[in-house]
């Protein structure tokens, strides 16, 4: 009795599967960007951070236009997920906002490189209906709000830097991220740097025990809360604030200036910090006049020694392309490009990628 139904569904399925095969593009030789040899179809999978997902999906689409036989599948299951999958070898590359810790790196079967791929910022969004003009926050005030010590919007400490704004006498509704996230890691990393008390009492990481406030799920959850509930404050990635037209606070950086989270300010932070040998470093609280204090890199995780030479070469070429041609897509999507002097170091690291004894990137 269910046979007929299964038959129907089976027919639908086979129709669809056929269409799927027809839609596979035929290989086309291209002169411009580095192409993969012998035109064979190559599929790469990657998993990891949600933060760079819009940028990576743009890269994948553009790269596929130039190299139609290379299909890259990146899914944002979270930085931790990315680390776990690349360690288990179920994907070809990983992506993470927070660099891998020592014990995580030890679990990988062989050496993993961190490749800084792009730069993003965590902004403080707020909802103050009566206020026109931008809120200015100092690090002490920010920590006070999130620690629950500063409870109302018209607290004298906030008023001190915002004399021209009419701050209401309402309770501040604090929102934090409940799900584990690189955004939280970057934000708490910054709070920890400016307040040793925060490090001691609350801690730094992807999930912490917040002293006060309400938890929302994901950047979109926090954005939704800030957008719909007046007198709320929350930390989110820059793209969410700018796409939803939420006001972003100006933060006082280490050099003492109030800086808005613009692309230039993000680049200034990256320029001010030296990148070490391992190619990962924290960019928060950078010491430069124009720097925005809550900036961070986002990394790709690639094995130094690729098991499959063909796939390894395809991946190496894609990452090379992303770090050169791919950077021009960053600004429109609210990311900042990798600075030139960091790029040189990264190029050197990419040239070390190999499969067995054979180096993967020759020439280019």
């Amino acid at each position, binding site marked *: *009795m269910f046979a007929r*139904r299964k038959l129907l*569904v089976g027919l639908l399925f086979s129709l669809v599967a056929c269409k*799927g095969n027809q839609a596979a593009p035929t290989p086309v030789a291209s002169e411009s960007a580095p192409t993969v040899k012998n035109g064979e179809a190559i599929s790469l999978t990657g998993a990891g951070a949600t933060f760079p997902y*819009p940028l990576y999906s743009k890269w994948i689409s553009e790269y596929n236009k130039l190299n139609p036989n290379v299909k890259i599948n990146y899914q944002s299951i979270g930085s931790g997920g990315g680390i776990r999958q690349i360690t288990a070898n*179920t994907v070809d590359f990983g992506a993470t906002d927070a660099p891998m810790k020592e014990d995580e790196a030890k679990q990988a079967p062989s050496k993993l490189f961190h490749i800084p791929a792009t730069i993003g910022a965590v902004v403080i969004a707020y909802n103050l209906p009566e206020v026109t003009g931008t809120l200015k926050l100092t690090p002490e005030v920010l920590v006070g709000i999130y620690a629950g010590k500063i409870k109302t919007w018209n607290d004298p400490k906030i008023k001190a830097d915002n004399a021209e704004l009419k701050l209401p006498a309402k309770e501040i509704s604090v929102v934090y991220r409940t799900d584990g996230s690189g955004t939280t890691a970057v934000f708490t990393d910054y709070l920890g740097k400016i307040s040793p008390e925060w490090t001691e009492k609350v801690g730094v990481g992807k999930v912490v025990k917040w002293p006060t406030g309400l938890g929302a799920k994901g950047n979109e959850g926090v954005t939704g809360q800030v957008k719909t509930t007046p007198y709320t404050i929350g930390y989110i990635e820059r793209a*969410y604030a700018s796409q939803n037209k939420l006001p972003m606070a100006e933060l006082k950086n280490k050099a003492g200036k109030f800086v808005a989270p613009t692309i230039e300010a993000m680049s200034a932070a990256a320029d001010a910090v030296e990148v070490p040998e391992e190619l990962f470093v924290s960019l928060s609280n950078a010491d430069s006049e124009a720097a925005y204090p809550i900036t961070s890199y986002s990394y790709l995780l690639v094995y130094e020694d690729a098991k499959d030479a063909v796939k390894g070469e395809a991946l190496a070429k894609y990452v090379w392309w992303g770090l050169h041609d791919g950077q021009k897509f960053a600004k429109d999507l609210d990311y900042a490009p990798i600075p030139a002097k960091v790029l040189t170091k990264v190029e050197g690291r990419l040239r070390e990628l190999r499969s067995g004894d054979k180096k993967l990137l020759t020439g280019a």
Partner: protein
Amino acid sequence: MLDRYARRKYSDIFVRSACVAATVIALVPLVSVLYYVTSRGIGGISWDFFSELPKPVGESGGGMANALAGSFKLLFLACVFGIPPGVLAGVYLAEFGNSRFGKLVRFSADVMSGVPSITVGIFVYSLVVLRAKHFSAFAGGVALGVLMLPTVTRTTEELLKLVPESLREAALGLGLPKWRATLRVMLRTAAPGIATGVMLAVARVAGETAPLLFTAFSNPFWSSGLNEPTASLPVIIYNYAVSPYEEWHRQAWAAALVLLLLVLLLNVSARLLVRNRVGAR
């Protein structure tokens, strides 16, 4: 004090109105959600939606053809893994289920229906994906099938038990062996109700995201066969809905609308197929 008759009359009226009120209350959120989804999603439905692959942000004209195909594929697999074992297990429970073994099975089904879908996904991940070292539609189908299993089993059992014994006795009296009497007569009579249970299970898994994240993964391109990761509507809805871009939000709502219509379609066709063969009350 009202006399007995009046009391009975009024309590009857009261309960009947309460039932009507309950139905209205149950439908209010549905209308609200439908209105919300439709008003936000209708703008994204276009021919492109059904025929194009997803495009990155900033480029117009992207669609979800691969996610639609993927969802069909996954639901088909889920039905293959979930319905035959589920229905037959339900038959066992209804026919022979009074033993300790039967009680254990029943209990397992009830407990299993309470396992969060993400746990099932993680379980299938360690069983299938880690072994194969890659994500696949097959793994996704297994995860969804496992989710469907308890609902299908319990519904089959409960509805089979309610078929009057007189039907079975008539069949046996006419010379059918026991197994034929059960399958051809009892099961067939209970079929419309079982179809309801099956459709409820399918409707639930059609919208599940968490178990697919670690099994079927997703795919911006077409996926062929069962061994490649595949896109699916719920995963794309989730990915787009949690992104910052208005453009993607619109597509997510459109996809939600399509998903609803898809489940509706499955529901209606399953009902029609089963009713036609049995005859409704």
